C-alpha cells in the first residue's frame, strides 16, 4: 500500500504537478459520484415498493375501520347479539367478547392483514425487479408475520387451556391443580415457540432437539405427577362408575321410596 501511494505521489518529471492532483481528485470524485448514484438508484428502485407497502397498509386499515364500524352498527341495529343468544344455549367454548364486537374486530384485522399481504407482495415484486440490493432480512418479512401470529395464537391457547385445566382440576378436587395448569400452559407455549422458530428457519436442528427435550420433559413430569398423585381420584371415579352401573342394573320400582334418608342432591 505504501508502495502504491509512493508511486502515486512520486513526482513525474514529464507531467506538471497541478494536472496530476486534478486527475486524482477527479477520479475520486467520479468514484464517489458513481457509488452515490448506484446507491440512490437502488434506493429509488425500492422506494416505490416501500411506498406501495405503506399505502396498501394505510388504505386497507382505513377500509377495515370503515367496514368494522359499518358491521358493528348494522349488527347492533339488527340485535344480532340478542338473536344469537336466543338461538343458542350455553356452550363450553364461548368468546369473551360479544359476537358483534368479535365480528367487528375480526373484519378490521382481516383488512389489515390483507393490506399487509398486498403491500408485501407489491414490495416483493418491486424488490425483485429493483436490483441486487442484498438486504437479507427483507425476505423474512412474511415469515416474521407468520411467526408473530403463531406466538399470539399460542399464547391465547395456552391461557385458555391453562384456565380450563385449573378449573376442571379444582372442581375434581385435585390438590396439585395449579401445577397441572402451569404444566399445560408451558407445554403449549413451548410448542408455539418452537413452531415460530421453525417458521423463521432459525436454529434448525438445535430448536427441534431443544423442543423435543423440553416437551418430553414436561409430559414426563405431568405423567409422573398425575400417575403418582391421582390414585385417589381414579379410585373415586371407578367407585362412582361401579355405583352408577349397579343403579342402572337394578330393577325399577313402582312404589315411591325416598332413597337414602337425608342425602344431598344438587338437582
Amino acid at each position, binding site marked *: 500500500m505504501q508502495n502504491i501511494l509512493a508511486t502515486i505521489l512520486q513526482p513525474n518529471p514529464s507531467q506538471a504537478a497541478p494536472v496530476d492532483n486534478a486527475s486524482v481528485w477527479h477520479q475520486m470524485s467520479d468514484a464517489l459520484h458513481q457509488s452515490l448514484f448506484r446507491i440512490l438508484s437502488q434506493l429509488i428502485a425500492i422506494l416505490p415498493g416501500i411506498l406501495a407497502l405503506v399505502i396498501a397498509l394505510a388504505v386497507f386499515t382505513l377500509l377495515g375501520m370503515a367496514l368494522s364500524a359499518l358491521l358493528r352498527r348494522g349488527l347492533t341495529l339488527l340485535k344480532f347479539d*340478542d338473536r344469537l*343468544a*336466543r*338461538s*343458542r*344455549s*350455553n*356452550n*363450553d*367454548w*364461548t*368468546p*369473551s*367478547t*360479544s359476537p358483534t364486537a368479535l365480528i367487528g374486530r375480526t373484519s378490521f384485522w382481516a383488512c389489515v392483514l390483507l393490506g399487509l399481504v398486498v403491500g408485501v407482495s407489491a414490495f416483493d415484486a418491486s424488490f425483485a425487479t429493483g436490483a441486487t440490493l442484498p438486504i437479507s432480512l427483507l425476505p423474512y418479512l412474511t415469515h416474521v408475520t407468520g411467526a408473530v401470529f403463531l406466538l399470539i395464537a399460542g399464547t391465547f391457547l395456552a391461557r*385458555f387451556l391453562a*384456565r*380450563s385445566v*385449573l*378449573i*376442571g382440576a*379444582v*372442581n*375434581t*378436587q385435585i*390438590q396439585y*391443580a*395449579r401445577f397441572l395448569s402451569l404444566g399445560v400452559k408451558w407445554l403449549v407455549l413451548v410448542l408455539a415457540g418452537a413452531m415460530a422458530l421453525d417458521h423463521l428457519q432459525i436454529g434448525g436442528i438445535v430448536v427441534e432437539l431443544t423442543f423435543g427435550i423440553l416437551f418430553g420433559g414436561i409430559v414426563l413430569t405431568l405423567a409422573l405427577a398425575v400417575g403418582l398423585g391421582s390414585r385417589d381420584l381414579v379410585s373415586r371415579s371407578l367407585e*362412582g362408575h361401579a355405583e*352408577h352401573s349397579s*343403579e342402572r342394573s337394578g330393577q*325399577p320400582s*313402582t312404589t*315411591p*321410596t*325416598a*332413597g337414602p*334418608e*337425608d*342425602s*344431598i*342432591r*344438587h*338437582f
Partner: protein
Amino acid sequence: MATTDPISEIVTPSAPASVGLLVMLASMPAEQVESVLTKLSAAFPAEDLLIAAPDESCADSFPSLRIVAAPASTPSSTLTAANFVHAYQLAQTHEARAILVLGPESWSLESIALHSLGSAVLTTPIDLAVSRYALRPRVSLVTSAILYPLTRTLFASRVRFPLAIDLGLSPRMAERLASAAQRFVAADQGEAPLWPVNEATVSGFAIGQFDVGPLVQPHPSAPDLNTMFPLVTGSLFSDIDAKAAFWQRPRQLPPAREPVPIELAPSSDSAAEIAPMINAFHLAYSNLYEIWSLVLPPNSLLGLKRLSALDAAAFRMPNSLWARIVYDFVLAYRLRTINRGHLLGALIPLYLAWVASHINITASGADPEGHIESVAAAFEAEKSYLVSRWRWPDRFNP
C-alpha cells in the same frame, strides 16, 4: 292437595274435566307407565285423554285409552327444548285443548295431583300449572340456592321449583314455549333446558302452583355436578340476559303462601357431610382467587377471605354475600368477562360453600325452607345492586 298459588284463581278439585287433554309421558319402564295410566284413568274420563308415550306396548292393558307414539327423549332431570316442541306439535296434530307434561318419575305422584295439574289448564284461565313438590330438605339444592331466588327476584314469581318436570300447559303457553324452544332445536341444541315460568311471566300469562306431594327425584342425565351445574345455571343466566328489559322494572311479588309440611328425616352427621365441600372451597380459594378477582368486587373477595378462615363448625355464608356473588356472576356472564364455561366452573366451589353453610344452619335447628326464603329475601334486597351494575358496569364498585 289441590291448592293454588294466590296469584291465580282457586281451583276446585271437583271441577269436571274437559275434553282434549294431551298427556306427554317421558321414557320410563313399562310397569311405571302402567302405574301412571292407572292414576290418569282415575283422574280423568278415559274418552277425554290422549296419551303420548314413547312406548306404545302398554296400549293392550288399557284398551279404553287412546295412546299414540311420542318421540323418545333422553332421560333428564329437566324438561328440554325438544320436549316442548314435540308437545306442541302433537297438540296441534290432535287439536288438544290442554297439555299435561309428565316427567320420568311422575309415577310417584298421586292421581289427585295429576288431576290438579290437568284440570287447572283445562277448566281455569291458568296457562301454566307448575308442580310444587314436597321434597326432603337436602334435595334440589341448586334450585334452592340459585334458581328459586333468581326467578323470584327477577320475574316476581313464587314458583318454588322453576325447573319442575310435571307441568300443565294451555295451548297458547305451549305455543309460546315451542316458539322459544324452536330456536334451540334449530341450532341442534334440543337438550337445552327451557324456563317456562320466565316465559309465562314475560308474556303476562297466568301461573298456578299446585302442591303435588312427594316425588322420587329423577337421576340427572349428566353424570355429575360439574357437568349439570354449568348447563342449568348457564341456561338461566342466558335467559336473564335475554329478558333484561323485563326484569329491570320493579314488580310486585305475590304474597307468600303456607309452606309445604315436609317430614324431616333424622339428621345425619353434618360435619362429615360438609367436610368435602369445605375442602373444595378451600382448594378453590387457594387456586381460583385470580379468576374470582376478575369477576367479584373487593368487598365480596374480603367476605370470601373471612369465610375461608372459619372452621367447619362455624362455617356460615352471609345471605347478602351469596346474593352479590350470584349477581356478579350473572353480570360477568353478560359481559363475558372471562370465557363462560370457565365462569360457571368457577362458581361451583362457591355454590358448594353455600351448601355447606346451608347444612350447618339447618343442622343447628333452623327451618330449611325458612333459610331458603331468607336467602331469596336477600336476593330481593340486593336487586338494586344488580340493576345498578347491569346498567353501569364500569362504575366504581368497592
